[in-house]
C-alpha cells in the first residue's frame, strides 16, 4: 500500500507542478534556435547570441524561465529540430522560416544589422546591355547561396513570378531563354564575379549593395529591385504557454531600453525587438506568397 501512496503523492505533486509552470522553483526552459552562419566556424553562433541568452537568463530567472540557445548546422537541421520539438522559438530569415513546420508562427521582428526590412537589388556591369529583368534570359546570374533569402530565394521567386525560367548554370543543356544561375558563396564574390565577367548579373539585398567596396562598386550598375520584405523574423511555437510567451516577449522588447540589454543584443547585430504590426503581417504574407513560386 505504501508504494500506492507514494505513487499517488508523486502524481499529485506532478499535477501541482504542472499547474504552476512559472514558479521559480520549477524552471521552465525556453530554447531559441538559430542556424550557424559559418559552417567552418561552429562556435560563431554562440559568440553572436550567447550574450543575449545570458542577459535573458538574468532577466527571466525571477520568472523561472531558463533560456538556452540551440544551433542548427543548416536549414535542414533546423527544420528537423523544430519538427522534433527541440526548439521553442526560431530566429531566422523569412525564407528559412517559410520552410519550417506550420507549428511556428510569427512572433516578433528583430531589427538586425540596422535594417527592419530589406529589398533585393539586381546589378550588372556598367556597359552591359541588360536593362530589365527580362534581359536576364539566356544570361548568367550570380546568387549567393541556396539558403540566402535576399540573395537567392526572394529574387528567384520574384523572377519566376514574372514568368522567367531559371536553371543552374551547371545544367548540361540549359534552355537558351532560361536564366542560368550560379552560387558565388558570399555577397562580395557576387559583386567581384559580375565585375570580373564571371557572371553577367548578380543580386543581393540593399545593405550588401551599400557595403560593396568602392573599387568594385564603380564597376557595377543596379538595374532592378524587389519589393521590401521583413529582414529577420522571430517565430514561436504556436502551443507555447501564452503567459510564458508574453513574459519572454515583454522582456525581449524591453532589452534595448537599458545599456546592458542593448549591449547583449548588439553582439548578435540586433538593435531591438519590435512587436508585429499589421503591416508586418501583410508583408510577411506577401513574401510567403511570393516564395511559393519556389515550390516545384
Amino acid at each position, binding site marked *: 500500500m505504501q508504494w500506492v501512496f507514494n505513487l499517488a503523492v508523486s502524481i499529485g505533486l506532478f499535477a501541482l507542478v504542472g499547474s504552476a509552470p512559472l514558479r521559480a522553483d520549477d524552471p521552465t526552459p525556453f530554447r531559441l534556435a538559430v542556424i550557424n552562419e559559418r559552417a567552418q566556424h561552429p562556435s560563431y553562433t554562440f559568440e553572436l547570441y550567447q550574450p543575449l541568452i545570458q542577459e535573458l537568463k538574468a532577466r527571466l530567472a525571477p520568472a523561472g524561465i531558463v533560456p538556452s540557445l540551440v544551433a542548427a548546422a543548416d536549414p535542414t537541421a533546423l527544420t528537423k529540430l523544430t519538427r522534433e520539438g527541440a526548439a521553442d522559438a526560431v530566429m531566422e530569415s523569412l525564407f528559412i522560416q517559410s520552410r519550417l513546420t506550420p507549428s511556428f508562427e510569427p512572433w516578433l521582428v528583430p531589427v538586425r544589422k540596422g535594417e527592419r526590412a530589406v529589398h533585393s537589388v539586381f546589378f550588372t556591369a556598367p556597359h552591359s546591355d541588360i536593362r530589365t529583368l527580362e534581359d536576364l534570359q539566356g544570361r548568367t546570374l550570380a546568387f549567393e547561396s541556396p539558403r540566402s533569402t535576399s540573395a537567392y530565394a526572394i529574387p528567384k521567386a520574384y523572377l519566376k513570378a514574372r514568368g522567367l525560367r531559371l536553371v543552374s548554370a551547371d545544367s548540361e543543356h540549359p534552355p537558351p531563354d532560361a536564366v542560368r544561375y550560379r552560387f*558565388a*558563396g*558570399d*555577397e*562580395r*564574390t*557576387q559583386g*567581384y*564575379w559580375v*565585375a*570580373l565577367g*564571371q557572371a553577367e548579373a548578380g543580386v543581393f539585398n540593399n545593405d550588401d549593395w551599400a*557595403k560593396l*567596396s*568602392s*573599387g*568594385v562598386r564603380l*564597376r557595377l550598375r543596379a538595374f532592378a529591385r524587389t519589393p521590401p520584405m521583413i529582414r529577420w523574423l522571430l517565430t514561436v511555437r504556436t502551443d507555447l504557454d501564452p503567459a510564458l510567451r508574453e513574459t519572454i516577449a515583454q522582456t525581449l522588447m524591453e532589452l534595448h531600453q537599458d545599456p546592458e540589454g542593448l549591449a547583449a543584443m548588439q553582439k548578435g547585430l540586433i538593435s531591438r525587438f519590435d512587436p508585429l504590426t499589421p503591416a508586418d503581417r501583410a508583408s510577411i504574407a506577401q513574401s510567403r506568397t511570393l516564395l511559393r513560386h519556389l515550390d516545384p
Partner: protein
Amino acid sequence: MRLALKYTLLLGLGNVTLLVLVMLMTHFSLHQEVSGLRERFDAAARADHQRLAETHARSAVALIRHRLFDPLFDKRVGELERIIRHDLAAWPGVRRVLIADAEGLLLTDGSLSNQDFLTPLALPAKPSTDQDFQLTPADYGFRLSFPVAVENTLAGHVVIELEDGELHQRLQRQRTLVEESFNELHATMHRTGLLSTLLIALIGALFSYRLSKTLSHPLRALMRSAERMTNGDLTHRIAGGPNNDLGDLTAAFNRMAESLQRNTLLLQNEIAERRRTEEQLRYSRDCAESANQAKSAFLAHMSHELRTPLTAILGFGQLMDGDPHLHPSLRKPLATIQRSGEHLLAVINDVLDAAKTEAGKTELHPEDFDLHQLLEGLSEMLGFRAGEKGLRFHLTWKDDLPRQVRADVRKLRQILLNLLGNAVKYTEQGGIYLRAETETPPQAHALRLYFEVEDTGIGITAEQLPHLFEPFYQTPECSLRRDGTGLGLTISRQYVQLMGGEIQVRSRPRQGSRFSFSIDAAAATRPPATPEIEPGVQVTGLAEGQPRYRLLITDDDALSRQLLVEMLRPLGFEVRECANGREAVQAARDWRPHLIWMDLQMPELDGRQATAAIRALPNPTPRPVIAALSACVFANKRDDLLHAGFDEWLHKPYCRNEIFAVLTRRLGVRYRYAAHRPAQNTTSPYPLSSAGLSRLPPAWRKAFADAIPDLDRERLLQMLDELKDAPIASALRQRVEIYAYDELLRLFEAAE
C-alpha cells in the same frame, strides 16, 4: 763636447712628433677596426635573416598555395578576402597581402575598400608555375611573391609584404653590443693616452730644462741688451757667451752695437748740420716772402693810386675830344695828352699783369666769342700800322677753324697784339703773317687752337733767344728804340702757359722770326652775343622810344664821379651821385635806380658792403644792376665779385664805350651815333676789314670804290649817309675825313 743647438731641437721635436703620430695612428686603426666589425656583424645578421625568411617563406608558400588555388581559380574573391583577413594576416610580420589573377590584375588586397581592384600588380617578368617563389628585399623588409598553380594551370599570383622588424631588433642588439665594446676600447685608449701625455710632459719638462740652460739664458741676455740699446744705451756690450752658436751670435751682436754707435754719432752730427742749414733757408724764405708781400702791397696800392687819376685824365680827354666846340688849336695837345695817358696806362697794365702772374693771381676768364672777328679786327688794326710802314699784312686761317669758341679772349687778344706789335715794330720791309688753325680735330667741346705770327724783320740771334722771355730783357736793337716796357713777351708766355700751351720761337738775324703757340679752348656754349659798341664809334645820345634810365654813381673820388656824370648826363640819362656806400643804399631804396656804378674802396661803407645791403632790400623794383668799378687789379677776383652780388665789373681807367656797352648789355639801352666825327684820334683808327666790306651791297660797294680815285670827299660822305648809322659807315666816314684814300682803295680791292 759641442752639440749644435739645431740638432738638439730637431731631435726633441722629432721624438714628440713620433709619439703623437703613433697615438693618432693607433686610434685611427682601432676606429676603423670597430667600424668594420660593425659592418661585418650587420652583414652576417642580414644574411641569417634572409636565410630564415626564405625558410619561412618556403614553408608558408607550400602551406597556402593549394588552399588558395580553388577560390583563386573560381575567382571567389570574397573567400580569398576571408583567407587573407583570418589566416594570412595572423602570420608574423605580414604587412599586406595582394592577390592577383593569372593576368596579374589585382583581385583584392584584403581591405574592405579594395581601392586598387583590377590594377596591374608588379610581378616577376616571367611568372613561374612551379613551386618557386621570390623573396626580394624591400624598404619595409621582404617581398614574397609566388604563383598559385597546380601542374601547369596558373590560377593567379600572391604577393605578401613582410616587415623585417625582427631583423631590425637583432641588428639593434648587435650594434648595441658593438658600441659597448667600442666604448670599452675607447676608455682604454683614453687611459693609455693620458699616460702617454704624462710621459710626454715629463720628457718635455726635461727637454725644457736642457733648453733653458743652453738656449734661453743666453737669449734673454741678448734680449735685455737689445732693450738697453733701444732705450739709447749704445755703449752696452754682452760679456762672455756659451761655447756654441749662441756664443757666435753674442759676438756678432757686440760688433753690430759698435757699428751702430759709430754710425749714430755720424748721423747726429749730420742732422745738426742740416738743421742749421734749414734754419738759414727758412729765414731767407721768410725774408723773401715778406719782400714779395711788400711788393704786392706796393703794387696794389700803386695800382689804385695810378689808375684813379688816369681814369680822370683819359676820361676827360675823351669828353673834350668829343666836344665840337673845342678850339682846333687844342686838339693836337689833347691828342698828345691822350696818347701819353694811354701809353702810361699800357705801361702800368704790363707791369701789373707781370706782377699778377708772378704772384699767381692771374685767372682765366673763359667766354664765348667770335674768333674770326677777333682775327679780322687784329688784322685791320695791325694791318693799318703795317700799311703805314709799307709792309704787307696777311691773315690766313684754315677752313675748319671754328668761328664761335670759348676761351679767355682778352688774354688771347693781348698775346696776339704783343706778338703782332713786335712784328710790325721790328720789320722794315717785307710783310707780317698771321696764321690760325685747329691743331687737332674737335672732340666734343675740346679744342686746341694754333696761332703763328711770322715777320721778315731784323730777327733774333741764337745768343739772344734764351733770354727773350725774361722780364725787361731787350735786344740791343730794341734798346735803341727805347719804347715798350720789355714785359710784353714775358706776359705773353705766361698767358700762353696759363692757357695750356708754350710759345715756340724760330728766328734768324736779318731774315725774320716766327712765333707760334697753341692754347686750350672749347666750342662756344651759347649762340653769338649781340654786338656791343665798336671801339672808336662816337655815341651822341640815346635812341628814341626808351624809358628814362636812372643811374646812380657811387664813388668817394669826386673827379671820378664828375667824369661819369659828364659822360652820361648829356646823353639823356637821369644821374645821381653818392660819396659812400651808406648814401648809395639810401638812394637805392628811395630813388630806385636802374643801374648803380659802385666804386669798391670807399669810407664808411665800402662797395661790397653797400651791394650786400642793397641786395637785402625787400622787393626792389626794378632790381638794380650793380657794376663794380675798381682801380685795384690785385684785390678783386671776378668770381668773388659776382658772388658778392655784382653784375658787372670794370677796371679803372675805363673808356666811354665800355661804360655804354655795359648799359646796352644790362639795360638794353640803344644809342645814336655821330654822323660826322669832327676829329679823330689818329693813334687808334677804327679797324676796317675787307671781310666787313664784302658784306655791304655789291652795287653800293662798286659805286663807292669807283668814287675813291676821284678824291671827291663830299660825294663819298653823301654815299656813306645812305648807310645811315651803321658802325662800318662811321669807320669809313672816319677814313674819308682823314683822306686815307690809299687804305680805302686797298681794302675795297681786297673785298672784290
